[in-house]
């Protein structure tokens, strides 16, 4: 009997994920109501997702959270880059171009500043912990921008797999810190307008962190933050292994 149920669920991975995520949303929003929406339901749901990811990672020993458990494999499909990007694009529907133009310049400046700061901070931390070769510093600096820039930089510069793994870990820490901290810090940090959201997207850069952070804070800000954040990883992949590496080499080489 149990075999039939589990077997069916495993054959319908995406559908199983829809069903379970629906239940998670329902419970999370019910809890949100209980606390008078002081913590928004979507923030609770995202934290619940992270807790599930932790449990899944511990149980399976894999790297993709709950989706490494075959019963929950559909989470990987539903929350994978393809549907995520599709849903992000859909949030742009109904946005006014004038708003985007107004927010765009500051968002772009934020993006450039943030790639520089993140790389510099990551490289400095790497140096402080004894990773003093320029390749290691650039790779960990790349990881401090996003968990994609780190391995791209490391691969381009020929960093060791240990350092590349560290850069990915730094990027994952960043992404999860953004998810958790955004709903808590949004108001004091001034994240209340589309322009501020565009700046925030440029500053944080991690698409997963920004998309989850804004979803938990204020869904109407999502398109503005996501718009700038989606340029960040590409820009980082371009700048960190080239300009970033050369700057570090000039300073420490």
């Amino acid at each position, binding site marked *: 009997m149990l075999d039939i149920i589990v077997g069916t669920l495993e054959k319908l991975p995406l559908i199983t994920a*829809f069903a379970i*995520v629906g239940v998670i*949303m329902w419970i999370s929003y019910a809890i949100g109501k209980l606390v008078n929406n002081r913590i928004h339901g*979507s923030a609770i*749901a995202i934290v619940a997702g*992270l807790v599930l990811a*932790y449990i899944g990672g511990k149980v399976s020993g894999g*790297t993709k*959270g709950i*989706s490494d458990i075959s019963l929950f494999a559909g989470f990987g499909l*539903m*929350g994978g880059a393809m549907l*995520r*990007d*599709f849903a*992000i*694009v859909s*949030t742009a*529907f*109904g*946005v006014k171009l004038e*708003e*985007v133009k*107004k*927010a765009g310049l*500051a*968002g772009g*400046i934020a993006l450039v500043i943030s790639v520089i*700061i*993140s790389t510099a901070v990551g490289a400095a*931390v*790497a140096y402080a912990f004894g990773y003093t070769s320029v390749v290691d510093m650039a790779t*960990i600096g790349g*990881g*401090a*921008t996003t968990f994609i820039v780190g391995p*791209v930089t490391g691969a381009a510069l020929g960093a060791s797999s240990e350092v590349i793994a*560290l*850069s990915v*870990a*730094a990027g*994952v*820490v*960043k992404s*999860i810190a*953004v998810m958790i901290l955004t709903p808590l810090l949004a108001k004091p940090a001034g994240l209340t307008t*589309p*322009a501020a959201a*565009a700046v925030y997207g440029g500053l944080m850069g991690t698409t*997963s962190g920004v*998309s989850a952070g804004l*979803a938990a804070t204020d*869904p*109407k*800000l999502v398109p503005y933050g996501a718009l700038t954040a*989606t*340029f960040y990883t590409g820009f980082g*992949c*371009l700048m960190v*292994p080239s300009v970033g590496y050369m700057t570090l080499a000039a300073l420490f080489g």
Partner: protein
Amino acid sequence: MLIYGVSLMSGCLIAGVIIGKLIGHMVGIDADVGGVGIAMLLLVVISRWFIDRERMSELAQDGIKFWSAMYIPIVVAMAASQNVVAAFDAGTMAFIAGFLPVVAGFLLIRPLSALSGSSEPEDAAKPAKRAAQGAK
């Protein structure tokens, strides 16, 4: 038909990612530079053009709004697929290297958003109302 909206969105994403890859290729990296962002801009411009000419039915718009309402559940599934264990077990260095830029980011939101010089912060949020309704 509902699929018209979904199809338009898909076309925007495909075009955006191709353009992003082309930009990446031109500057010599094997990555997509801003493909999703370009897709968003395409959707904003093209859907506005169709709606202004009343060439986009309510149903077609609902096809897009459905996905925008699925955004938060998809993000929850994404959160559940993250490598949270690695983040927890990352060790001090990776933790500090990932955490400090986030702190710096939150501190810089106010000064940098002052650059965009929006005089009416509350009003500025209104045009996004439709997206917000969709996202609920």
